């Protein structure tokens, strides 16, 4: 059994990479991700890993290097945040189209403008359609666990898609918490040897990556990603459960808290899920039938599971830490669509909250429950904003 450590989420991710020892890490520093690449640079400088570490001149190049390395046959990891993820946007699509199992940690941060370095999910949500599996962790332990599981999911032969493991900027990336890592050799056994498929470095069997494709084949190429995403849902579920058996930490794509007998539910992703459980405990002590639902996997979206979990509830608030300008938060329509065919649909409300790192206080979340219970929540709500 490994010893318990105290560190922040970025350090936990860097630690997981040290144990995985990827062949190539290419990255560019950006707040609040920087600690990951700083820590990892130290492991490289001290010979604690045999990784080829490329300190790129931009995120766009960092992801391009990851694409080249992964296609060449290497196990590859990187990390970014905010503007960096936005700068990678073009090449994110290429990574998934080439079916490259790149693992990327994203320290969720608001997008400019105005420039802001604090947490919201605008960056990851902007990349939601790029063909990447997206996991969201809640705390330092999950940052570490998700990072390890990302390699298993990405490299699964049914998936072979890049995976993004997201953690809330500063809230998880910079806050110190206790967490329990796996032993080094246990991690080594867990992730196993990387098996590349048709690598570029196999020059005796030359492969073409990224050809020009016209109207006659493009659609079919995209459909293959759709199919891989469909498979990914089951693979993620199995990976989470297998990891649970291995570590004793129970994980699933969606995780309910006092959900079964709850009439009123608040749903969130990331660190807010933890605060929500605290609030649920308080309100339960007052005899209110409330519960919460944490979404851990955003892409592929586990629609059937969400529908099953929320069917028959009286009202559900969907907390979005991002907004699609001119529409709602990105999670809200997903949940609406999931429940469309349900016989017993709850009332659904959308709460936009915490943009640019705005604090999320327990009493505010208790207020959301109150509004759900007394029916005063509107379809669109902006928690704590001065209008």
């Amino acid at each position: 059994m490994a010893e318990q450590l105290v560190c922040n989420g970025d350090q936990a991710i860097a630690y997981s990479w040290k144990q995985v020892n990827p062949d190539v890490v290419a990255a560019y520093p950006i707040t609040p991700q920087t600690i990951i690449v700083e820590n990892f640079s130290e492991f490289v400088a001290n010979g604690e890993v045999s990784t080829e570490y490329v300190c790129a001149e931009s995120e766009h190049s960092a992801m391009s290097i990851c694409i080249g390395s992964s296609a060449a046959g290497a196990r590859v990891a990187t990390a970014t945040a905010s503007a960096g993820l936005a700068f990678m946007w073009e090449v994110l699509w290429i990574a998934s189209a080439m079916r490259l199992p790149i693992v990327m940690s994203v320290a969720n941060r608001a997008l400019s403008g105005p420039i802001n370095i604090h947490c919201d999910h605008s960056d990851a949500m902007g990349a939601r359609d790029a063909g990447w599996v997206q996991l969201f962790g809640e705390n330092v332990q999950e940052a570490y666990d998700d990072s390890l599981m990302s390699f298993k999911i990405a490299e699964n032969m049914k998936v072979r898609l890049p995976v993004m493991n997201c953690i809330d900027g500063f809230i998880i990336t910079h806050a110190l918490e206790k967490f329990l890592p796996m032993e080094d050799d246990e991690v080594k056994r867990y992730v196993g040897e990387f098996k590349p498929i048709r690598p570029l470095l196999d020059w005796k069997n030359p492969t073409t990556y990224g050809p020009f494709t016209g109207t006659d084949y493009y659609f079919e190429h995209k459909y293959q990603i759709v199919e891989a995403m469909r498979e990914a849902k089951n693979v993620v579920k199995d990976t989470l459960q297998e990891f649970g058996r291995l570590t004793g930490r129970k994980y699933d794509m969606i995780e309910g808290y006092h959900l079964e007998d709850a009439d009123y539910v608040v749903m969130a992703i990331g660190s807010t899920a933890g605060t929500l459980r605290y609030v649920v405990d308080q309100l339960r002590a007052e005899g209110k039938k409330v519960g919460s639902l944490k979404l851990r996997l955003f892409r592929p979206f586990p629609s059937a599971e969400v529908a099953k979990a929320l069917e028959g509830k009286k009202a559900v608030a969907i907390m979005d830490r991002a907004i699609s300008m001119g529409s709602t938060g990105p999670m809200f329509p997903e949940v609406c669509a999931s429940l469309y065919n349900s016989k017993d649909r709850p009332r659904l409300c959308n709460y936009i909250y915490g943009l640019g790192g705005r604090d999320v206080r327990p009493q505010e979340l208790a207020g959301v429950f109150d509004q759900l219970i007394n029916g005063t929540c509107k379809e669109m709500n902006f928690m704590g904003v001065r209008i």
Partner: protein
Amino acid sequence: MSVSLKELSKLEPRYTEGHRLCAGCAEPIIARQVLMATNKPIVVSNATGCFEVSSTVYPFTSWTVPWIHSAFENAAPTITGVESAYVALKRKGKITDDIRFVSFGGDGATYDIGFQALSGAIERGHRFMYVCLNNEAYMNTGIQRSGATGRGAQTTTCPAGSCIPGKREYPKDLTRIVIAHDIPYAAQASPHNYRDLMEKARKGFDANGPAFLNVIAPCPRGWRHDSSKTVEMAKLAVETCVWPLYEYENGKYSLTGESKRIAEGAKEKRPVSDWLKAQGRFGHLMKPQWSSIAEEIQHNIDKRWNELLKLCQI
């Protein structure tokens, strides 16, 4: 390395028939010459552009070597990613072969949108050769201006009108900008002098670090010359000193081929008007209204040529 045509014709082609490039395009000529310059295994990355879209129309490819295209501006980081994987896997004992890495990009991908990425890759010292197929404009999307387009040339985004005579600016001297990175090897070459080009490509492949080859690539569509005149046009670029042949090796500049002979007085330097008259893209400069532009261009070429002579200590 043998560079007799007889010997070269026996080599297994690494870039073969079936591509969709225009008749008279210089790019496949250059690529084949470059790829024949080493007998080591090669992995290629390609920027978006004519050369890329025409050579890999799915489900076909003209490449017999491993090849990757990612995006327009990232041929350099993509191949340096491949090279990094190679370094890592070699260190771990998973690869034992001696492999070479090369990127091809047009001037748009090299001078403009991909410049930062190229600069970063060179600065980090990855061992790869970047080959710029320089046809002096964005030809893939229909002949638009690039940072390599010559002054006075007309393109669809710098058309010659009644007030403005085509492109206002001189091309940036990318070869010297790249050299300023203190790169182990850089050169300018032309497909008409295949011995010179292949010798430079060989040096680039063997350089212990990044190498850069800037190759003039006449484009019959964009330059408006007959498609049978491509190689002739490349030669004219060198003979007018519009495109001097030179290399930078171990901190030293030296002229090569026809440029060396011109500098040594063994060959006549042709006037730039020969270059301008030969191409439709400069046709408007022949009108009396713009006669001063041709003079300015000649003046600029002379200035740059004299600077180069000084760098080469001639």
